[in-house]
């Protein structure tokens, strides 16, 4: 796919790893590994104000803009959602608002073989995280 927003080296690495995963077990193990890479949030960031509602497990999302570029950070209680958060952040961090607005994140998770994690009945919260991320980005 030709994209106006090329993959960061981290995102390219994720895509490569997940595209090689042939089974749900491999994808689950990879997700947990990626979840471990998530930089922890401080207690002052894991507060109600930063909580993403609509997730089965607790998830927090914070955003800042540095030189027009978005830097999101996130934490979650459950291991698999942490993996999904890591895969989200590796794709969106460093983008400017326009690029973020244009980015097709369904397509990103689809390429990773994780499209089902975004289905509307899933309560894992990835949809809620994406919605919150867009709200934070558009409010800036």
């Amino acid at each position, binding site marked *: 796919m030709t994209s106006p927003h090329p993959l960061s080296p981290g995102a390219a690495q994720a895509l490569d790893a997940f595209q090689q995963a042939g089974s*749900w*077990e491999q994808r*689950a*193990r990879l997700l*947990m590994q990626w979840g471990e890479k998530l930089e922890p949030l401080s207690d002052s960031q894991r507060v109600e104000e930063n909580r993403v509602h609509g997730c*089965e*497990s*607790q998830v927090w999302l914070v955003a800042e803009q540095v030189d027009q570029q978005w830097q999101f950070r996130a934490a979650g*209680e*459950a*291991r*698999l*959602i942490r993996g999904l958060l890591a895969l989200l952040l590796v794709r969106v961090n460093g983008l400017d608002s326009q690029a973020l607005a244009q980015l097709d994140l369904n397509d990103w998770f689809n390429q990773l073989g994780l499209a089902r994690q975004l289905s509307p009945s899933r*309560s*894992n919260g990835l949809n809620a995280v994406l919605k919150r991320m867009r709200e934070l980005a558009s409010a800036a």
Partner: protein
Amino acid sequence: MSLLSPWRADFPGILALEAEGQTYLDSAATAQKPQAMLDALLAYYSSGSANVHRAQHLPGERATRAFEACREQLGKWLNAQSSAHVIFTQGATSAFNLLAYGLEHLFQPGDELVISALEHHANLLPWQQLALRQNLKLVVLPLDTARRIDLEAASKLVGPRTRLLAVSQLSNVIGCWQPVAQLLALARAHDALTVVDGAQGAVHGRHDMQQLDCDFYVFSSHKIYGPDGVGVLYGKPEALAQLRHWQFGGEMVRDADYLDAAFNPAPLGFEAGTPPISSVIALGATLDYLNQLDHQAVTAFEQALHQQLMAGLAARDGITLLGQPNIALASFVVDGVHNADLAQLLTEQGIAVRAGQHCAMPLMKQLGLGGAIRVSLGLYNNGSDLERFFGALDNALDILR
């Protein structure tokens, strides 16, 4: 020898899900339907639908007869004195709301409404909101160590200010029969109205309203293998007579003028608008189907399945049950494993169980849990469904631990 349900083949939905690789263990959320129900639904629509209680024409008369036949069946099913004591609602939730609004006029500020700590949101929030509207006191009966409603505490908390007691017969989280008879006796001693939530209990065993002697009993069709969109509210005649009309519109009115109106008594006075005609007729077909089963065989089979579920959970390390389930379902958590992770990996393997808070957030908070996994059974489940569940559970825990 693995348990084989003799009734499984009667439920096309469970067979279709199996063919799709899905193991359905979420019947406490909604149950699969027997072929007889699907046939009745199709037969009603394909032979010409009509509205009920209104028209003099033949299709209208036919629909009304079939619709009212289901009310008759329910009257017998519940051993009510008369089928006129059975009101159709849009679901169990709507029945509780009908009660909370219809009885509101009976309560004065400071009166007490009593529920228990394990109520589903449907039998909690209507009463909580009524208490807030009318400045009543909502009393919450605590649970004992087995997570049954604590009778000793209840005997102190149910008192002269108690005007209504509303409790679940069988918790959707704990999966054990609650001491409803004793609780009702406590409430009756203080002339309080009694409401029993039969949403989970109605499908497991037959419940005799004259024996239970509650003022109101509520359940939903879709959990007893009937269609969704229908709830059943049974009321004793003297209790029904105390209900104020709640929703207004077609067919519930006896005489209407521009500035005032007079309304029908129960049941029709509480069935405003066109009811879910096809669903009620199809519920009748489900009841016919259930009636011709050997009830002892069904109960024995469900018990055997439940024992297999309990034994499998007991055989695995680190599993903590919520309470002491003795029928229909079991909820559990695993030490060091988030229920959301476990739920996701069970889903990956085609296991359809429920995860989360089970519409009982206050109970989960009290248990100190963010969520739990619930496995629930229907009469169509085979022992092999549980074997697949346990295989998937072991795989998931291998990955997560």
